[in-house]
């Protein structure tokens, strides 16, 4: 009898534990549901540098297409309580094995990270892309060379090669994609050719960010000086007035964000210059003159490169109102953004065209209509060989 009574007491405790368990389960489910749906939706993610999806009302069309269902799932993930904090923590903590070293000729410590569809190597404290070769991009290269050679006939053309990280084989410590040699061999007609002087990883470190795919202020200023020499305007090179360094919050470059390496960040420095007054149109609209107020924009995951140098758009037009000077077209990518204004300050009008965003671009007509005298091509490996830089290309490039 006593034993039976004991068993009943024990069962009661188990029942209470079961009820507590069910309550916890339901709290997570219903809590997640109510908080996600009822609280005001967050607009953007600073860390991911993108707009967040919000829960929208369905209609028959979106339901039938399935787009409402997909958006709802994305919105739930985006708007779930603490979702951004969760992503931040997991990005920092869920790389169980962060650093592994193997002896290498170039860097004593050479680490590799791979995300779903791409690999990055970490050499010293730099994140770099794994190398590409000319052969694997040959089809696009042929396509691009066709219109480069057309440029050479239409205007005085200047090619400036920028060996971004995937032009470099950090294992062998040589260029795997030698854009300079390629253009020298393949370009026809009258043209000028220069390059950012990178032959090995040591050179690379001077000119590029540790956590981002772009060149840093040293690299882009060197590029500006090299291009001025190519243009025969060496004496006009604008000196640096000041160097500003942003330390807090520091800069999480594209690679750091992409590879979930949020334990890596770096200082972001940029130069200031004395630039005469000008007007600027972005995609056909006048925009304010550009003394960058980075202080007003900065947040923990600021994309300083974009905020300070400008984002990629189809067309910028700089007008310094100097009719005696020439007009120039810059064949742009994000690499040209730090130097656009500097270069433009030596010309009358500067047309910066990013083919990835410019629909149905007719270069012959464009050069003729805008009375362009010179063309400057920022020949990074992606500009020379990327599918996104084909005429009428897509917008997926970084």
């Amino acid at each position, binding site marked *: 009898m006593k034993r039976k009574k004991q068993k009943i007491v*024990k069962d009661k*405790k*188990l*029942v209470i*534990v*079961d*009820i*507590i*368990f*069910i309550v*916890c*389960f*339901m709290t*997570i*489910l*219903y809590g*997640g*549901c109510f908080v*996600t749906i009822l609280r005001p939706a967050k607009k953007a993610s600073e860390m991911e540098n993108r707009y967040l999806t919000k829960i929208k009302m369905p209609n028959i069309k979106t*339901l*039938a297409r*399935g787009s409402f*269902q997909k958006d*709802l*799932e*994305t919105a*739930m*993930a985006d708007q*779930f309580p603490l*979702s951004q904090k*969760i*992503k931040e923590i*997991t*990005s920092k903590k*869920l*790389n*169980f*094995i962060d650093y*592994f070293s193997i002896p290498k000729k170039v860097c004593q410590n050479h*680490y*590799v*990270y*791979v995300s*779903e*569809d791409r*690999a990055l*190597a970490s050499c010293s404290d730099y994140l770099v892309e*794994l*190398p590409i070769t000319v052969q694997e991009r040959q089809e696009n290269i042929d396509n691009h060379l066709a219109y480069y050679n057309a440029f050479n006939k239409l205007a005085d053309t200047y090619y400036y090669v920028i060996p971004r990280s995937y032009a470099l084989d950090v*294992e062998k410590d040589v260029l795997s994609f030698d854009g300079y040699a390629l253009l020298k061999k393949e370009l026809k007609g009258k043209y000028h050719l220069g390059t950012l002087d990178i032959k090995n990883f040591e050179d690379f470190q001077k000119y590029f960010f540790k956590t981002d795919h772009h060149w840093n202020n040293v690299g882009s200023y060197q590029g500006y000086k090299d291009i001025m020499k190519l243009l025969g305007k060496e004496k006009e090179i604008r000196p640096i007035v000041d160097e500003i360094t942003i330390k807090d919050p520091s800069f999480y470059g594209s690679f750091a964000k992409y590879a979930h390496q949020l334990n890596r960040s770096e200082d972001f420095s940029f130069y200031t210059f004395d630039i005469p007054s000008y007007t600027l149109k972005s995609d056909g609209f006048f925009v304010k003159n550009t003394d960058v107020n980075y202080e007003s924009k900065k947040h923990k995951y600021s994309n300083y490169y974009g905020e300070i140098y400008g984002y990629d758009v189809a067309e910028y037009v700089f007008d310094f109102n100097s009719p005696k000077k020439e007009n120039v077209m810059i064949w742009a990518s994000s690499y040209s953004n730090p130097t656009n204004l500097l270069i433009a300050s030596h010309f009358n009008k500067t047309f910066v065209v990013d083919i990835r965003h410019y629909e149905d671009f007719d270069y012959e007509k464009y050069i003729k209509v805008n009375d362009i005298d010179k063309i400057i091509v920022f020949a990074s490996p992606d500009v020379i060989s990327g599918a996104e830089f084909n005429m009428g290309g897509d917008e997926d490039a970084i």
Partner: protein
Amino acid sequence: MLFSSLTFLCIFLPLLFIIYFISNDKYRNLILFIFSLVFYAWGEPKYIFLMLLSIIVNYFLARLIDKYRKRPKISRSILLLATLFNISLLVIFKYFNFLVDNVNALLNLNITMRDIALPIGISFYTFQILSYVIDVYRGEVKVQKNIISLGTYIALFPQLIAGPIVRYSTIEKQLTRRTTTLDKFTKGIKRFIVGLGKKVIIANNMAMIADTIFDSSSVSEYSWIIILVSLLAYTFQIYFDFSGYSDMAIGLGHMFGFDFEENFNYPYTSFSITEFWRRWHISLSTWFRDYVYIPLGGNRCKKPRWLFNLFLVWLLTGLWHGASWNFVLWGLYYFVILIVEKLFLHKLLDKLPKLIRYIYAFILINIGWLIFRVEDINTLLTLFKNIFTLKKGNFYLDLAHNYYLLNYIPYFIFAIMGSFPLVKWFDQKIKNELFKTCLSDILLLGILGLSIVFLITNSYNPFIYFRF
């Protein structure tokens, strides 16, 4: 809709709980039926009509079979009609392009293929419907006169799209009368969380490795070791994906008062392939046994006929998994091994140490999964060659993936642990029920939390068995 989605966890399920449990018993099937249709239509709205057509046609055909029970010729003809109808749906929506492709290749024709997407779960619900109609014909179950109840059985969302294949006889009584007790409901939640964790924490991470390699256009450039590790990842992926889904289905079934049969029993602990197939996708194996193998005569016939019966069952098992030659090859691969085991190998294996038998079975299972995973026969042959010749790979590809893989070591450890009945072992070891319950509850809530974290941070979420 996926079980492992925030939409299901935070909208569908909470809403269903409220409506289902405040409703009167007599409306509960209708509620489950409507929610099941919404669940199915969520991913592919247009195919809801196909399933409804299937329910209606089979409902009437089964009633006709019952009506003409005393006139065997007629009822048999109706059964044949029902079988033809169901198999035709499968052929049209699953095998049409495969057949056309092969006819074109064989006869040098140019018949146009049709742009048909595979309706989710069609193989599962077609087999369930077939079992119902056949069982009605055999007199093993009573015909269901309430179309909503039949619809609930066929469309029941827990097992609708990825099984287990629930026989009508299993839940016949529960369709009309079922109870949800506190104990059963708690058990259901716990089983559901186990399945969710298997899917989201282990299978999805294993998929990251397997899919990165096997979906790569340069898959044949990887070294043998990378291919082997990726194959191991796929072996775990498919088990935790599928058994995780079955766990969630069984758990959800419990929550709403149903008892589904088990579908897996630690298949990677098998000591032979025969044993593996007793432990893997049990509902499919038993379906083929009861509705194909035994009606054909099973093993109670002459040896050539028995061989033919087995051959047909394994050919169909392969084809059931997909309209592609690699699935046929996969089915026949198991046919050959099972024949060899049954004829003489079993006796030999029994004399060997358990470890050798285990390794034997595990290697063959992995080879089977490689055939299953790689649809292109030429790539498959290249991969086998790379593995068996210990091929060195492309330096950068290998380097990248070596380090990529290192990040997944913890998930491999979870997968290995989860493949063995460790929980059962602990369950037997710990005697204090209260402590055991509290400990498991805390762990399960942790798994639920972690799964939600993974769902938020990781959008890579494919369910392998959806395409079957």
